[in-house]
């Protein structure tokens, strides 16, 4: 198995791990963390696409690489936004969960 395929498989596994964490973890912060993990797995798969298409004198296709760089920066911006939302939720309700059975959360700590 080539090195590229190895990293591609680990990317696939990371997507799986991230998805599991995203679904099962109740806390929003941990969901954000899991989502970042999932995203980096997808990036790794992209890296393999780039590595496979190595052209003359290049280690890989630069187009997917440039896309991954863009994606990493955008993922950071999205993470910052998501965290600001969670902190605002905390400020408004005193809670940091998205429980449906306790809606509104009219003030105070739960």
């Amino acid at each position, binding site marked *: 198995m080539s090195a590229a395929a*190895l*990293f*591609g498989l680990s990317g696939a596994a990371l997507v799986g791990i991230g998805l599991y964490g995203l679904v099962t973890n109740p806390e929003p912060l941990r969901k954000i963390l899991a989502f970042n993990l999932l995203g*980096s797995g997808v*990036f790794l798969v992209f890296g393999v696409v780039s590595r496979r298409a190595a052209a003359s004198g290049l280690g890989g296709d630069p187009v997917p690489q440039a896309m991954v760089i863009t994606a990493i920066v955008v993922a*950071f911006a999205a993470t910052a936004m998501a965290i600001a939302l969670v902190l605002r939720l905390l400020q408004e309700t005193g809670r940091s969960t998205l429980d449906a059975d306790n809606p509104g959360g009219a003030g105070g700590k739960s």
Partner: protein
Amino acid sequence: MTILSAFDIGLVVLILAVGAATIAKRDAFAAVIGYVVYGLLLAIAWVRLSAVDVALTEAAIGGGMTGMLLLGAVARLRLAKGSDARPSFPVRFAAAALSALVAAGLAIAVLSPPEAIPTLAPMVMENLAQSGLGNPVAGVLFVYRALDTLLEKVVLILALVGVWSLAPDSVWGGIPGLRVYAPPSSTLTFLAQLLPPVGIVVAIYMCWIGAKEPGGAFQGGTVLAAMWLLVMIAGLKSVPSISQRWLRLLVVVGPVIFLAIGISGMVLANAFLAYPPGYAKPLIVAVEFALTLSIGVALGLLAAGPPERVQPQ
């Protein structure tokens, strides 16, 4: 080559273990520390995939900046009582099955490459000579797909506006609630005096070298952002209020110059975001320097969070 494969296998196992630990840890602080380790290790993986530009970005953003952002949130969310209730076993089992299925599907896709591997690399290399750049990734970012890069800067600004608009009305235009280091610490002050000069040199170096070797505006900008945050956390410089004119000017200066050159390309080179022949490299380097500043300020402000108070403390 077998030792190198052994190295790769070891690296992959380590990355997967740390990634799984990030999900499995009960304590949020430990989980985020795991994520920082994961980001730094991933940089090594990108090096092994011959994607040094990506490795630089991952080390800077995945390891450093995201960690700073998440740890700031962990410190605040500690006092909030989260629900300890994990989903019931059937739910977790279904989630695990679903995740395994998705991972397996991706793995099959990875292991069965198409007959003819689609690649744009020859086209990039063909056009790279015209731009005068030596780094193909920079060529893609600023020549081949310049529109993507421009729009990404717009996304950064939109995200910043989004974060700011989550502030309550009473503190709009105020000072971001960046957590500063609580007790005054001479050790941290020393670090915040020592590291930024080094960081600024590294940022300029990254930006300059980006034209011919791996590096560029993203990596340089992230280093600048980190150094700025370090100085603010140590309390050497106060966090500026977001209504400051110079701050907003710095955030937009990069995209504006990029856009101006893009529009002038319509006149001088017959296409939006095209460069006049012979001037491509100096123009791209100018855009990169302006973008480095803007990215640095925008990332720093994103990590600092929404405004929380009007008066300086």
